[in-house]
Structures are given as structure tokens and as C-alpha cells.
């Protein structure tokens, strides 16, 4: 069981081997100190970061990197907030430049996000496809944020994506996995003839059970941010998400029982001291 548990927690994405199947975002925390403690509690060793203009005036002097142990965490830079393929590629290149400077292994990959709409933050599938191909040409391992559309997922893989990351529900919405069947079909299509192809549910999970449900579907990992960062007890939720990921993976590997309409008794019929109804 011990060896299986070790296997359960290890996630291979491209050339990166992660010690946890949970990838955690670094945004929306009330303070950098709280973020640092939450990441520690979550058990993750991979965190997403965003690329933004340096504040030239009013800079408080604190930098995210002062609170992230870059020897411990593989950073996964995102292109969040980009609405065109051009901007996403540009942002990815800037992220790589920073990560190369701090010699973090995350310099060769990117979480690609090309959005289409500010209200839903849903991705633009056409621009995401274009950006994927361009970033692959630039030598990136591309992890694509996508909707749960199995056709788009398949096209992203064909375009060279290292991982496809369908959203459970809109970013930050906390609605969990809204369309489990679409995730199932994504898994079937993406893992056809390629069972080790990593599929990660990115976005929308609100609590531990959402994470477990996603993992039980057979996805390889979950990426979340708001579910921890906006919980009432951040560290408590970080722990919960950690164990939910492990529980879901173990349950998936162990095989759930089929659902039946009627009951089957767990205690034996034989030896009853009472009369049984007919």
C-alpha cells in the first residue's frame, strides 16, 4: 500500500515530475505570508504565477518571489488575462525570461490561457489553438486551459499541447465539475492510445469534494486557486484540498462499485435471531 500511495501522489507532465497531483495558484491571498503557509499546507510542489508590469510608482518593495522557495516549487507561469494569441505568446516569453533568470525548472513550460470574455472568463478556443502551436514552436511545454469540450481538447493535443486542462466550471466560480460526462469524454479521447497523457482539471473547484469528484473521474491532477485563497480558514482548506486530491486518486485507482437501484445487505442473512419479512 505504501508504494501505491507514493505512485498515487506523483504526477508526470511532460518532462516535469511533480510530487503532488494538486497544483495551486498564488493569487488572491490577503498576504504573501498567508499564501506561503497555504502552499505549504496544500502539499503541492508546483504553483502558478502571473506575469505583470512592474509597478514603477508606489511599489511596496515586496516581490512574490521573496515569499516563494524557488528550490522547493516548480513555478508554472500563466498567460492569465490575455485575450489574443499575440499577447499570450508575448507573456509566455516574458515569463520564461524571468524563470530562466532565477533558474527555476518551470522556465520551459507555460499555462496557456487565452480568454474570450471578461464576464465568464471562458477561453477563446481558436486563439488558444493558434497560441498553442506558436508556443510549441518556441520550445514551450504548453498546458492549455480549455473548456470541457472534448473536440477542442483533442485539437489542442494535436496542436502539441503537453497537457489539456479542461475547466470544471468558470474560473473562480466554485461550482465544481459541472459536466462530468464531458470530462469523461475528454479523458477518453485524450488518453486513447496514450494512457499517460496528463489531463488536469483547472478552475471552478470550490471545496474538497469537488476536487475528489474530479480526481475520481480519472483526471491526473487538479489546479485550483480561489477555493483555498478565499476560504474562511485558508490553511484548513489547503489541508482539505490536499487530502481530497489523494482520496480521489486512490478511489479512482481502487475502482468504485457500480451504482444499483436497490440495497444489498452488508451483514449476512444466515444466523438471524429475528423473523425475516417475506
Amino acid at each position, binding site marked *: 500500500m505504501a508504494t501505491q500511495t507514493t505512485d498515487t501522489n506523483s504526477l508526470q507532465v511532460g518532462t516535469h515530475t511533480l510530487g503532488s497531483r494538486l497544483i495551486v495558484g498564488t*493569487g488572491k491571498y490577503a498576504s504573501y505570508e498567508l*499564501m506561503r503557509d497555504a502552499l505549504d499546507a496544500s502539499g503541492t510542489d508546483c504553483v502558478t504565477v502571473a*506575469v505583470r*508590469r512592474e509597478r514603477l510608482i508606489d*511599489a511596496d518593495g515586496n*516581490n*512574490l518571489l521573496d515569499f516563494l522557495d524557488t528550490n522547493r516549487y516548480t513555478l508554472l507561469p500563466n498567460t492569465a488575462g490575455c485575450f489574443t494569441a499575440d499577447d499570450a505568446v508575448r507573456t509566455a516569453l516574458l515569463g520564461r525570461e*524571468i524563470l530562466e*533568470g532565477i533558474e527555476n525548472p518551470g522556465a520551459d513550460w507555460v499555462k496557456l490561457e487565452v480568454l474570450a470574455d471578461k464576464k465568464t472568463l471562458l477561453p477563446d478556443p481558436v486563439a488558444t489553438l493558434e497560441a498553442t502551436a506558436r508556443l510549441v514552436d518556441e520550445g514551450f511545454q504548453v498546458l492549455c486551459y480549455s473548456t470541457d469540450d472534448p473536440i477542442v481538447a483533442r485539437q489542442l493535443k494535436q496542436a502539441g499541447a503537453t497537457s489539456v486542462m479542461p475547466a470544471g466550471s468558470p474560473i473562480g466560480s466554485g461550482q465544481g465539475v459541472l459536466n462530468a460526462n464531458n470530462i469523461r469524454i475528454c479523458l477518453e479521447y485524450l488518453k486513447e492510445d496514450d494512457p499517460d497523457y496528463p489531463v488536469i482539471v483547472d478552475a471552478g473547484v470550490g471545496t474538497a469534494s469537488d476536487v475528489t469528484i474530479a480526481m475520481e473521474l480519472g483526471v491526473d491532477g487538479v489546479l485550483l*486557486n480561489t477555493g483555498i485563497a478565499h476560504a474562511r480558514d485558508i490553511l484548513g482548506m489547503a489541508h482539505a484540498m490536499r487530502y481530497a486530491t489523494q482520496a480521489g486518486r486512490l478511489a479512482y485507482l481502487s475502482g468504485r462499485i457500480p451504482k444499483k437501484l436497490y440495497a444489498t445487505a452488508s451483514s449476512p442473512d444466515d444466523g438471524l435471531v429475528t423473523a425475516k419479512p417475506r
Partner: protein
Amino acid sequence: MTMIVVRYPTRCNTFCWFNRRLFSLFFAFLWLSTIVFENASAILSTLSPLGDIPRMTAFSRTNITSHPRLFSVQIQVNGQARDVDDRATVEQLLTDLGLSVRHMAVELNLKIVPRSRHAETILSPGDALEVVTLVGGG
């Protein structure tokens, strides 16, 4: 302007006059060219299809002249106009802004300037510079 008077031991008047003019013109041209070259190279580099090749030749510009800076140039840093000394480098700008290069990436006119080239990359009028860092994100 100081007059340069040169005496020529020659017998031909016409030749002498011509030669003297030519000589002072030559000096005037030299003086002008040092100024023109400084700014022309910056302007040309923005027009050149080769883009950043002329601008990278930092040492050729610094070697030619040693007189004090005559101009400041206006550039855009993260979308805001900013005046920097003529011949200021990316490295000098980051120092002036008080930014630690460890956490930065710099993009000049949509092209990344690798950290190793910050010191040799000279800013030209109209340059659009982006200085970015990492922040929390999901």
C-alpha cells in the same frame, strides 16, 4: 566657433585657397558627424529592417565621442512616457527605477532583452519598454 588658420607653403594661389577651404570643411564635417552619428544611429535603427542590430553596437557609439551628453530622449516605460539620458542603457534605467533585476524581464519594442544584454542595450527615442515581474496568479 574658433577659426582654424592654416598656412600652406605653396606658390599657387587658387590651389591654396581651395585647399584651405577643403581643410576647414573637413574639420567641420568631423565635428558634425560625431553629433549626427549619435542620433542618426538611433533613428536609423528604428527604420532599419534589421531592427536591433545597429542599436546593439553600443561600444561604437561610446568610443566615438567623449564629450558630455547633449540630449535626453523620451521613451515609454510600461506605457508611461519617461525621459532618460541619451545613450542610457537598459541596465541604467532599471537602476534609476530602483528595480532589482533578479525578478525582472525586459521587453524592448516587443522583443525580449536578455539579462546578459541589459548593459549593452542603448535606449533610443520612441522606444517602448516593458518591465515585468511575477505576481500571484492562478
